């Protein structure tokens, strides 16, 4: 079976600094991958390239059969709308739009908006009673759940989450992790950048980076055994 994500000898340089150095790995459809490593190891750079937010300097990245390193700005924008769902550490909701409108915004840029579908997506993350609230009226956990609903609304091929619980307290972290687990169980492919060993242990595999290089790929269940 062809892997959903193929990363081959991926390099990213910012001037003299080498943020990613010949990183190679693959992700099967439905897998939950934790991308781990110390600060400055290249985790966010890797996820930005996978999400089409940044261009690789060298190497090859193929997602769902599409080599994204060769895409122009316009194609990358379409790629992000069609295939990627983002969840950010800072939530990144539009402050003047309600929870419902924030979800509909992703629909708007993807194709057409469907208010009922957006409301159902928020219902799935337990926010049926918060549809008309703007981000300032929501807790951090609730904002992150809106972001997850937004990431899912267009049925993306891959969900990319950058420290999704980094700004949450323990209770809200547990809620978000439960949601991610449910998404994984439902067959979604998830790549999560995290410092947290607890989240790393929930993943199918851990891709560990050090100084921009792939240090190791581990399977948490085997590590526990």
């Amino acid at each position, binding site marked *: 079976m062809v892997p959903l994500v193929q990363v081959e000898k991926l390099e990213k340089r910012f001037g003299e600094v080498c943020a990613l150095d010949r990183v190679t790995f693959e992700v099967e459809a439905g897998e939950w991958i934790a991308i781990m490593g110390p600060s400055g190891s290249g985790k*966010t750079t890797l996820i*930005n390239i996978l*999400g089409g*937010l*940044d261009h690789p300097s060298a190497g090859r990245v193929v997602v769902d059969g599409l080599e994204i390193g060769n895409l122009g*700005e*316009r194609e990358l*924008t*379409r790629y*992000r*709308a*069609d295939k990627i769902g*983002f969840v*950010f550490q*800072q939530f*990144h909701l*539009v*402050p*003047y*739009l309600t929870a419902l*409108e924030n979800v*509909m*915004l*992703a*629909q*708007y*840029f*993807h194709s*057409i*908006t*469907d208010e009922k579908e957006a409301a159902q997506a928020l219902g799935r993350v337990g926010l049926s009673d918060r549809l008309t609230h703007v981000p300032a009226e929501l807790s951090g956990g609730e904002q992150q759940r809106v972001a997850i609903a*937004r990431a899912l609304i267009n049925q993306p091929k891959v969900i990319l989450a950058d420290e999704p619980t980094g700004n949450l307290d323990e209770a809200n972290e547990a809620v978000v992790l439960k949601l991610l687990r449910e998404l994984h169980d439902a067959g979604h492919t998830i790549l999560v950048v995290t410092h947290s060993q607890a989240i790393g242990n929930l993943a199918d595999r851990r891709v560990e980076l050090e100084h921009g290089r792939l240090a190791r790929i581990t399977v948490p269940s085997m590590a526990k055994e």
Partner: protein
Amino acid sequence: MASRSMFLRILWKLLGASRGRLAVALIALTSGAAVCSALLNVNLDAERKLTQEFRTLGANVVIAPPAGGSEAALADTGVLDRIAALRLPQIIATAPYLYVAANSGSQPVILAGTWFDQVAKMNSWWKLEGGWVSSRDDHEHCLVGFNAARQLGLAPGSSVVLRSGDRNISLTVAGIVTTGGAEDNQILTNLDSAQNLAGLSGRVSLVQLSVSGTPSEIEGVTRRLTDNLPGLEVRPVRQIAAAEGKILGRIRGLIFWTIALILVLSMFGVLASMAALAMERRRDVGLMKALGGTVPRIMRLFLAEAGTLGAVGGLLGFLLGVVLARWMGERIFGVVISARFEVLPITIALTVAVALAGAFPLRLLGQVRPAEILRGE
């Protein structure tokens, strides 16, 4: 349809989100639009009123037999009926003149027979000492030009006997006029009296017309008169037409450049607000791009926001401008300026254009790189 309603929904939220900054931009646009609307109203209305005013400053078209003939250098009074039959609304006054060489005692003097009611309409600036001759049936009174009065020793109330050939008439001086023109050396009386004295019943030397309108409108009237009055020369008084055209042209030029300056200043006001707004919106644009928003689609939202602001500013500015124009008309031109609704679409179009030009910093947001924004750079 769903996309359009979402577009309007986001647009509405955008307008509400940065009320402070947008209010500053709206004030700049409204004030600019108000001045533009006022000046455009003044331009349209004052031009019409000024051309009417100009028509009290003397004749601007003269109809006379062709120069060169001697006996033939008189026209039939039927010409007056033919002019009236054309029913040209631009003709404000029609004054026939018959010039007769007469003598007062041993002093030669020109007697000009005319219609005083028409002369009064087109020469309101004449300085008069004494009274005016108000009726065309008044065959007893005359007006005497300032120089002629001095030469003949006449004053209001004096009597003068004029002789031409073997005919003579006796007139009482109603008033002394100072015109600064040929009339200062003439005696003016009713047309019938002059015709009787000269034995030229039904004849006139020339007809003076006061025609209102722009130089091109006056040209049009001249053409129609020429076509309908064969055998007569219809001559616009070029100096007057040119002077009127020059004054109107200068007023128009002044208004045009003032409007241009005001619009540029308004644009800078909008530019300043929009530059600050663009800084606030960088994160939103980065996010929208990350979610798959194309640059044209995102920019459409911001340009629609600026356009809406321009349209609202234009409408408010138009209303304020009408009030301002009325005030300017009364204070500066001494005329009542009425609202001209054709100015509304022009004002809105100009204000929208200024708002879109002032939204230039928002257009630069298209260059925002989402990865940098989402990293918090």
